């Protein structure tokens, strides 16, 4: 039971080394002559104006919020899908109802204009 996870763990360790080594080698052999102009933030050849932080659209936040909701939904559908053949009609329809309710929710958001990127 634990064995495949042991494999994943070892794989993870090997994989952690992999991206680190090239960066390290590069850090050792690459030239390093920083100066203030070279290290300035890129902005189309002019000096940066103001703070990095600018006001963002609230839509980013809305989509992140909706993402959490639908992500939870799809997670619930996963075990339902896997157990599908051990079910009777009633149980299968429970899952269908679950999807329908959330499709209704999506339709509601859509109608209210929550999915518009304006």
């Amino acid at each position, binding site marked *: *039971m634990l064995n495949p996870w042991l494999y994943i763990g070892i794989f993870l360790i090997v994989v952690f080394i992999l991206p680190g080594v090239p960066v390290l080698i590069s850090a050792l052999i690459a030239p390093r002559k920083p100066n203030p102009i070279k290290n300035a933030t890129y902005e189309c050849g002019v000096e940066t104006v103001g703070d990095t932080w600018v006001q963002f659209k609230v839509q980013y936040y809305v989509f*992140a919020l909706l993402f959490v*909701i639908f*992500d939870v939904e799809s997670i619930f559908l996963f075990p339902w899908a896997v*157990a599908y053949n051990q*079910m009777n009609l009633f*149980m299968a329809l*429970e899952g269908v109802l679950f999807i329908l309710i*959330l499709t209704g929710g999506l339709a*509601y958001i859509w109608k209210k204009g929550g999915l518009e990127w304006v």
Partner: protein
Amino acid sequence: MTVQVALFIALAAVAIVAAIGLLRAKNAVYAALCLVSNFGVVAVLYILLGAPFLAMVQITVYAGAIMVLFVFVIMLLGAEHLEHEDHLLLQGPLGWLLGLGLAGLVTFAAISANLSAPAELPAEVSANFGSPGSIGHLLLTEYVFPFEVISFLLLAAMVGAVVLTLVQREKKARRSLRNPQQS
């Protein structure tokens, strides 16, 4: 058994360090990342307990969805740049006091409970314990009512999200009506 115990202690230590990092981090983004690593370690603990499904859900939903939302909000608000102001005069000492009390209680419980006594657990769980199929089956037989309630809970969350932004959008529309060039 001893390997598992050693692994548990190591992981628990990482989890605690991450949790303390979350509390002590000056920068909100670092705090969020500490929380993500804490979730990750807890997921590994679930795997050790033979609940890989739960572990994957933990990573997908908590580390992958909820924390992304948090990081997003931090960045959208520019919250990591905000000056730290200490309004909490009473809460600090009170927190320490209650925290120490809880630690004392847990220690007392740990000492008074006879840890060496064999717990009454099945020696061997069945092969498909915690497998996705059995979880799905349970979800739709014993826990079918909570399962359906969850769909309504999610529906309520959707309505909430819409209502929140609808107010925003109406304000914006009104503002752009007043001075059209700023939109």
